[in-house]
């Protein structure tokens, strides 16, 4: 349904329901006023006046009540719409409750909300991570996942399928394409990593990471990089640290289409224009001029979805929630 269609429907329903309500109020008010009026209209003109005034007040009150009812119903339907939106934007597909709390605390530690502006919290980094973990990234969909699985960092000699390699495994650059040699999907890698991180926080500081101060949280993350925590058994903590940094910054700086970088707060921090090249909002700027200029020009950024809506090419460009 397009946004305009939805608006139309909303308006129609808010009109219709108060109509029924108003009719009911008028009906009851009419019975009371008419009975009273029949008894008093001849003999007590003064009273009649008062009755008329009373009736008028009743009518006014009735109108007010009906207005309030209409407003309440309107608000209720807005609340329903809003709660739907909240669920769509802020729901979790795969992160469990304990995981949400921990991932949020780690993301806010890596990118804090501070004087420089909004951080991981406002950017919704956690939703980016949740959506990635439940999709291709978490399932290793584009990864080569055939055996044998041989972990890097073995000095040798090692024997694989009957072949001996005197010098073991080659040096592997940190976070490179050969570093992840685990046989499990990244979703399970994260589950194991988060549990072991929380266990390390408990053993080192006697408390959960999310309850600790900033310095202690940073120290825990540094310890992960240094492979210090003994609570990591299934995976190496340094590998997990790399993934935390990579995914947190990605959630801050990738297109909002993926659930993070909300309000494009990440792009606003780094001065990135997204899909706006100086014409999208009618600025009338020219990329050739921007390219040869040595004066920085701050453009209002745009996301891929905004760009698609604004250019409105055939085959799309409607956006919305159809």
């Amino acid at each position, binding site marked *: 349904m397009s946004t305009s269609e939805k608006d139309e429907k909303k308006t129609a329903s808010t009109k219709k329901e108060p109509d029924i309500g108003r009719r009911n109020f008028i009906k009851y008010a009419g019975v009371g006023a008419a009975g009273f009026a029949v008894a008093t209209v001849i003999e007590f003109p003064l009273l009649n006046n008062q009755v008329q005034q009373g009736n008028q007040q009743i009518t006014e009150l009735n109108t007010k009540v009906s207005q309030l009812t209409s407003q309440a119903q309107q608000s209720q339907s807005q609340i329903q719409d809003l709660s739907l939106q909240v669920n769509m934007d802020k729901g979790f597909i795969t992160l469990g409750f304990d995981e949400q709390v921990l991932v949020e605390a780690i993301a806010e530690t890596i990118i804090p909300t501070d004087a420089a502006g909004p951080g991981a919290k406002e950017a919704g980094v956690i939703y980016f991570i949740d959506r990635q973990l439940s999709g291709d990234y978490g399932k290793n969909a*584009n990864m080569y996942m055939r055996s044998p699985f041989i972990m890097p960092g073995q000095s040798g000699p090692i024997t694989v399928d009957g072949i001996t390699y005197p010098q073991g495994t080659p*040096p592997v650059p*940190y*976070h490179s*394409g050969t570093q992840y040699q685990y046989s499990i999907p990244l979703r399970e890698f994260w589950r194991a990593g988060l549990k072991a991180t929380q266990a390390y926080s408990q053993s080192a500081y006697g408390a959960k990471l999310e309850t600790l101060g900033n310095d202690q949280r940073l120290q825990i993350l540094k310890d992960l990089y240094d492979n210090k925590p003994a609570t990591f058994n299934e995976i190496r903590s340094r590998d997990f640290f790399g993934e935390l940094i990579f995914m947190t910054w990605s959630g801050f700086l990738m297109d909002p289409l993926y659930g993070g970088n909300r309000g494009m707060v990440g792009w606003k921090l*780094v001065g*990135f224009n997204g899909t706006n090249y100086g014409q999208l909002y009618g600025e009338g700027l020219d*990329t050739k001029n921007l390219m040869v200029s040595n004066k920085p020009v701050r453009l209002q950024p745009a996301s891929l979805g905004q760009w698609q809506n604004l250019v409105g090419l055939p085959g799309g460009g409607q956006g919305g929630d159809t």
Partner: protein
Amino acid sequence: MMSQVIQHEETDLVILGMGAMSGTVAVEVAKAGYKVVGLERGPYWDFNSDYFYTKYDEWGIGYMRKFDHSLSNSTATVRNNRFQFAMPVRRNTPVGQIISEGFGVGGMAQHYGGLMGRFAPWVYKMRSATIDRYGEAFLEAAVPHNDIQDWPMTYEDYLPYYKQWEAMWGITGTNQGPFMPDSDYPLPPPPVTPVGALFRDSAEALGYHPFPTPTSLASQPFTNTYGEKVNACVYDGWCGAACNYACEMGAKANSAYRTVPAALRTGNLDLRLNCTVFRLDTDESKKVTAARYLDAQGNIHVQPGKVFFNGLWGFNLIRLMLLSGIGNPYNPASIEGSLGRGPAMGAGGAAVRGVTGTLDNVGGNSYPAGNALGGGYAMLDLADDNFDHTGLDFIGGAYVIVGSYLGGGPNNFGLYARAPSPNMMGSAFKSSIKDTFLPQKLPLNIRPNGMWPPTTDWFIDLDPHYVDKYGDPEPRLTLDWGMNTVKAANYLAQKYVEILQRMGASNVKLTDPVLTEDHMFAWPAHIRGGARIGSDPKTSVFNKWQQCWTSENLFAAGEVTDPVGDNTTTGGTHPAGPGSYVAAEGIKKYLTSPGSLT
């Protein structure tokens, strides 16, 4: 329905993979009236719909590689020497080791940066020219175990083929200065960035000969050799760099928008998409009789042909020949054989050592341009043998390119994700990346593409442990950089310091020398060589006509046939291009009169 074997009628030419080289061969041979079958494992991307609409997506393209071959199908394994176990590249990360193989018509050129420039005369006789000038002992000391071979033809021989390639591909730039004779390019250079102009002026003041960096991004609309109408670049910056963006304008050259449409218009090209070639059949004389491929429904097709052109990229070309029993596989222990011999890295030495500095009076906008280092200037004065190496301990040098902005367009990966570290946490780091794309002061980072000649220690073969999704062995790369790369980079970096100081940069510093664990940085992208052309069948796979010594009706072209594997100047597509015209001419000769060409 069960999958079945489908036998096709013989055709004149069968092309494996529809990338940059294949496009030239397809249009040239189809225009000559021969019947051509083109086999491509991917789709035919429509730049107007597929790229224009959804390409502005750093996550989807740069990391999730939505327009690329999926590693879940196949990968390569990598190691530094033959005594190590080779690790499979399991994922694409921004740190490198991305296997950005081609997928779809256009191949890898769909997502290259578009950096162009010919190889200079010296490159074609690197071995003999070095020995003539400095002696054999110098060469062996500079590059121990070196396996450098002269090309079978000279720069002058390749010149007409270069010109054909450049008019078709649409190369921008004026010319490449005194070290590159007769190099007037068909399209004007893109607009010059302020830092490009500053570099030009400073380099000239130091006595160097800078020229606008050649690119394959059309600087103005033009119509190419085959009547293809090409749009101009819009300089939005969503281009090459680390993320390998495809071009939504069709301005960045690749075969899908330069050659294949013209080949289709002849009515002689039968283009088959979603078809994965897995074997070449041969007869007793080792001539290729048919290509076997899988279609989308798993059916096996047998396509016979008179001639075959292997247009697969790099290790895939070598792998298909090894799997099909074609050629003589290289044996590193006895230093015999030629298939898989002599691979090296283009652009890889860049990680060895560089120079950083800050330009105080040149800020600007980092997001436009960026493409192919366009808007910049380059020079060859410190490349090849253009300076005296007497008393030095390495051969060659590097192209110097300055002028495009850092990272080139939308490359947020470059900011933070190359190698995660504890420094990337907290308010201090967050503040440090503020307004990166709107620099008041411009950070410069110049690295020499250190000269990387091949040695007899490096090779490509079939991995004994890992297979692809069809059960065929994966290619295994055994490759490292040698001391020539490191020594050249150290020397060149010192020269770069002078240039940056002349430009008025502050805080000019040499970066730390390379660390051991960085050895596998950025490869296997930019692999060069491994199935060389040459004059000697013992050390090369193909002759000067790009024709296989052992299977006379098999031709190939591409960076993979480069006999020196060097990266002295540019990306590899431009110097590979002439080979596709040589191969096309060779194939036409062969179809007229079969036999070994001379």
